[in-house]
């Protein structure tokens, strides 16, 4: 029987379980990972603010899951590979090439939102330019679709890989089962990334499944399963890189489960005090925050100084502010254009 692999799960550390050079990354790569994570975080925080100010109608967040997303995306090849993100994947979007402006257009429900022209809620990602397939609200429907995208790449003899994400809640749906099974049979090049943040809205993992690890399901499909510390960007990079290499070699899909935590309520419509304690949330807000972890690693390894990191952070914030201000001024969708594109226009 195949055993599932566990990376970074044996002990709790302050920095990373993995050395960046050991996984083929340079100092510049590490700083780029940091930049992407901080950019994602700042965009997230400002998005929350504008929603609270009543400027946007809805806010949903990947806060706390940045290492999982950025580590994974960094192991893939934007432009060549395919992406089927889920609604918390702001980090994936920024890492594959979408700009803060692109994402801000969706937040403000503006005409030029590249995902949907603001037909959909924010965080329903999609971007033709970067092979990000359109996504929807019904949880997990993207999983079999990823298997199909990967099948087509392989049929044509291309070595593109397809990323698809979902929560541990999403792993309970039939779509997960049928999609993974299909991809395993046909050795389709898919990275199935389960971002296990312990909750599906209010439902804790213990009522979602009777197992500790979603990755253990890989055994029943006949694909490798990996559990990784999702707060550790280098560890996530490492396991994803291995999975991507396997997929490119024609060895089929991998199920990666990143153990992470949602440090904010489910969305702007949720009050998480109804179902979890502040103490529980606090660990992940402090020492287990993925950005704190990477900062610690960088400082420990003297890859940059505090000042250099602060500078990156400041630039990220400026970038985000510019994007939000700009997006807010962009034109709204035109009412009658809602009639377009039910079918291909003649």
């Amino acid at each position, binding site marked *: 029987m195949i055993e599932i692999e566990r990376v970074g799960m044996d002990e709790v550390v302050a920095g990373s379980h993995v050395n960046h050079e050991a996984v083929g990354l340079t100092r510049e790569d590490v700083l780029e990972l940091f930049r992407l994570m901080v950019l994602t975080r700042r965009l997230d925080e400002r998005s929350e603010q504008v929603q609270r100010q009543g400027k946007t*109608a*809805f806010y949903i967040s990947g806060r706390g899951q940045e290492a999982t997303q950025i580590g994974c995306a960094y192991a893939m090849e934007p432009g060549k590979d395919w992406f089927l993100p889920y609604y918390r994947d702001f980090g994936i979007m920024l890492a594959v090439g979408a700009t803060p402006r692109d994402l801000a257009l969706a937040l403000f*429900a*503006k005409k030029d939102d590249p995902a*949907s022209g*603001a*037909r*959909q*809620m924010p965080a*329903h990602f999609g971007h033709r330019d970067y092979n990000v397939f359109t996504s*929807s*609200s*019904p*949880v*997990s429907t993207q999983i079999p679709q990823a298997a199909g995208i990967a099948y087509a790449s392989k049929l044509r003899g291309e070595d593109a890989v397809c990323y698809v994400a979902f929560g541990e*809640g*999403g792993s*309970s*749906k*039939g*779509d997960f089962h049928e999609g993974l099974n299909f991809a395993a049979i046909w050795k389709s090049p898919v990275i199935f990334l389960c971002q296990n943040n312990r909750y*599906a*809205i*209010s*439902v804790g993992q213990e*009522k*979602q*499944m009777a197992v500790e690890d979603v990755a253990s399901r890989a055994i029943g499909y006949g694909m490798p399963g990996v559990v990784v510390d999702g707060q550790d960007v280098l560890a996530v990079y490492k396991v994803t890189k291995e999975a991507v290499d396997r997929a490119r070699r024609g060895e089929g899909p991998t199920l990666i489960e990143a153990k992470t935590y949602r440090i904010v309520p489910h969305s702007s*419509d*949720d009050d998480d005090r*109804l*179902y979890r304690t502040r103490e529980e949330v606090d660990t992940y807000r402090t020492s287990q925050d993925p950005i704190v972890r990477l900062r610690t690693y960088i400082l420990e390894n003297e890859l940059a100084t505090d000042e250099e990191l602060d500078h990156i952070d400041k630039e990220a914030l400026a970038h985000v502010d510019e994007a939000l201000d700009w997006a807010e001024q962009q034109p*709204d*969708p*035109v*009412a*009658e*254009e*809602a*009639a377009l594109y*039910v079918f291909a226009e003649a």
Partner: protein
Amino acid sequence: MAEKTNLQAIHDTLWAAMKEDERVLIMGEDVGAKGGVFRVTADFLEEFGEERVVDTPLAELAIVGVGIGMAANGLLPVCEIQFADFIHPAFDQIVSEAARIRYRSNNHWSCPMVIRAPYGGGIHGALYHSQSIEAFFAHVPGLKVLAPSTPYDTAGLLYSAIHDPDPVIFLEHKKLYRLVKGEVPDKLFKLPIGKGEIKREGRDLTIFAYGLMLHQALEAAERVAADGIEVEVLDPRSLTPLDEELLLDSVKKTSKLLIIYEDNEFGGYGAEIAAIVADKAFMDLDAPIKRVAGPMVPAMPYNGPQQDWFMPSVDDIEDAIRELADF
């Protein structure tokens, strides 16, 4: 009697029904500690425990499939689908299974369950938190589909649904949860399933409407009354079984019919209403049967201008009334 919103009416009815009968059980996503995303089951967990207020995995097929099994084995499950838009993964369990348990077993088995589904738009819910789903299910023999639109009707029909011996799809318009208020008896009571109600009498034309559209129709009827146009507004409450007699009697009286629904027009529930009247009350009609309904785009957009473009408005209804009255 107390003044309640639709939401309170549902909450209180479920609560009392569970207090009264141990067989009644709630299941769905986030119905426990969170009390449901609309807080319909707020505080139920503490009162009834996690085995009767079941937080399910994120799995609609299982919510219904497991519910069918519970119903077969003596319970009276009330399944919550978080948003009606997410009922489709359970489509097979509802249509192929729940609806046919009695028929396919030649009456040896049955499926007394309720599936609650918050539906409808106008709340910036976008493509997947706004839909109307009644047309899919009203077409299926073996299901009862209820769409009450006032607190009183909601309370009475929910209690009837829980004790109905067959599966009931219970539709709750999200925008109406807190929008309307009305008197509701303090004690559990049943309203007969399959009976509509004339919510406003009139003799110039009949409007058939339910959900948010019922309230918009009543508002439009008020507006035109100022000009002496008297609109009769029929609330079916139960989409299937349909109170056909009430419908035909009203059309007989007014000779004109306007059907309003929020769902996409083509093949929507209102098409059947038109078909029935065009057959059985044809000789009573003085004018074409008109519809005001959602346009034929997949669902309503998120952004304000396009959402408003999608939703039939009070103005749209008013215009349609005037045009039909003038015919």
